[in-house]
């Protein structure tokens, strides 16, 4: 099967993730969408590594996962503190800073 299709798939996933960031209100979900984007990239990397016939892509994917994990830690901490303050995880509620 043509690996290019995986690229298309990952592109779709990436787009879905992007759209998710744009349309979802809940901070957690938004964040998950971002993770989705990262994983879409992982898929791309792996696919390319397949296409190029080198392992680097796959190794990179691992790097990305690690980084993503770190991001999760930070992200959740921040979102949690916000949630505790406002009793809401909606990203639309936090807009004191504007204009």
């Amino acid at each position: 099967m043509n690996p290019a299709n995986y690229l298309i798939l990952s592109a779709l996933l990436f787009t879905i993730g992007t759209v998710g960031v744009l349309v979802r209100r809940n901070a957690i979900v938004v964040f998950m969408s971002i993770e989705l984007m990262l994983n879409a990239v992982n898929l791309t990397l792996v696919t390319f590594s397949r296409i190029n016939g080198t392992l680097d892509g796959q190794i990179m994917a691992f790097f990305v996962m690690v980084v993503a994990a770190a991001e999760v830690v930070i992200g959740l901490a921040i979102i949690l503190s916000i949630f505790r303050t406002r009793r809401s995880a909606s990203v639309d509620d936090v807009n004191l800073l504007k204009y």
Partner: protein
Amino acid sequence: MNTVPWLTILLIVPAAAAVVVAALPRRHATLAKQLTLAVTLAVLVLAVIATFAYDPDKAGFQFGQSYDWISTFGISYSVGADGISLVLMLLAALLVPVVVLSSWNEVDGEAAGGGRVPAPTAVPDRGTPGGSAGGAGPAVDVEGIGPVGGAGGAGGAGGVGGGAGGATAVLAAPAPARPVTFPPVETRGEAETPGRRSVPAFFALLLALEAGMIGVFAATDVFLFYVFFEAMLIPMYFLIGSYGPVKEQAQRSYAAVKFLVYSLFGGLLMLAAVIGLYVVSADNLGHGTFDFATLRQMEITPGVQKLLFLGFFVAFAIKAPLFPFHTWLPDAGAQSPTGGAVLLVGVLDKVGTFGLIRYCIPLFPDAADYFAPMVLGLAVVGIFYGALLAIGQRDMKRLVAYTSLAHFGFIALGVFAFTSQAGTGAVLYMVNHGLSTGLLFLVVGFLVARRGTRDVGAYGGLAKVTPLLAGVFLLAGLSSLALPGTNSFVSEFLVLVGTFTANKPLAIVATCGIVLAAIYVLYLYQRTMTGPIVHPENKVLHDLSLREKLVVAPIVALIVALGVYPKPLLDIITPTVTATYADIGKSDPAPTHPAAAHPVATQPGGHS
């Protein structure tokens, strides 16, 4: 070639003094004044000595000095004096002490004429910058919800009305051109207590300004010139903004900002041209340089010349100012303290016209040739436009400012007529205008100080009460309408006759401008000094005080002296101007039918 670094000394002395004075604590006001006066007088003396050390017949710059500054960009600290810059430095050195003396009491509020402080103007205080207009004061801190930029409603309506108001208010400020009439009332109490305005700071600013003015004329490195050109703005800006009319906070900050932004705008365009010049030099000579002498030898393709010329020209046209870049001048002129106005119109604006003849023409001859008709046109328009507007003013300081617009028209005319007579006349005009308009501003300042209003309507019949003041006023006016026997006549006639030989129609039109000059001067005099005294409070005004006499005396003397015997200055100016035009291949048109056996340049009295 004498080796005394006159210019550097002239630069350092006031600059250093500025720092010292600024460092003085407020309570040492008198010390600050005395120190400033002493220093400025010293500078004047130095300048005069330098003038004597100057040899008019030697070509090129004298007292030259040059040290590398930013070698990466071929920038150097290099100064030098030629006939043009020397006389202008002299003018600056002369006017500053005069101004210092004239502003002796201005800052301490005494200037408001026996406790007379103008009551707040009728115009609404819309000009207060900083978006406080937006009404978003310090917001309540409900558990950390601190003052948020444009929180809530302020953000809403405030967007334009408030927030934008904050920004635009300064520029959308009430146009002071609407006659600022405020009945003088005893309002010491609610008037801003004079102590608020730091006296040392004021005089430090004056000194800084002097250093800047000397520097801008002395610089022979284009970059250095630009640096002074811009740096000079700051002290002037503060002079207008914090020492303008006490009660007109809105208008004065409006005027100050307008002045600064206008000048910065021009300056930035010039910066583009300056950098362009550097790049061109880098391409032509291999290594970029800002050295004026080198640059003027450089051949630039006409197309590029035009662009660079425009860059410089607009900056200078705003500075000078020429029609239609002038609208900042009336505001600045009206809102600056008297001393500031004198220096602003007397010297600072000369930087514009100076730049035209020093930089625009020698550096970009082809472009100068190409644009000359445009400039001449603007100049002539300016002559009439300024005069007519001056006739139409009721605010005396604005009026004087507009007259300057007309005078700058004459100067620009002379500069771009490309004949040595017109050019010399123009340069001399710069000096003379500094004296005559300076004196006008001083006298107007005296009146305002006595009466607390700039509105012509508040005066009338003063010649009876204050004959001396009226006399000086009239003399200043006569000088500004270029009556023979006063300094301005010589320069104005030179400009006109020089222009005439090159371009008859233009000169004829311009000459008609002298009628308008008579009207705006004498009409002003008539409204203020003659007729019956209508306002009782004018009956008690006192005539010139001794200090004021001392202030005007030197200028009055010079006005007459230079009118009767301008030769010394002319001898300094002429060679440089002639060289400048010869440099770009312009020579005076010969008389069409010279009287036979009439040597072209008669030695004095040769034909008598």
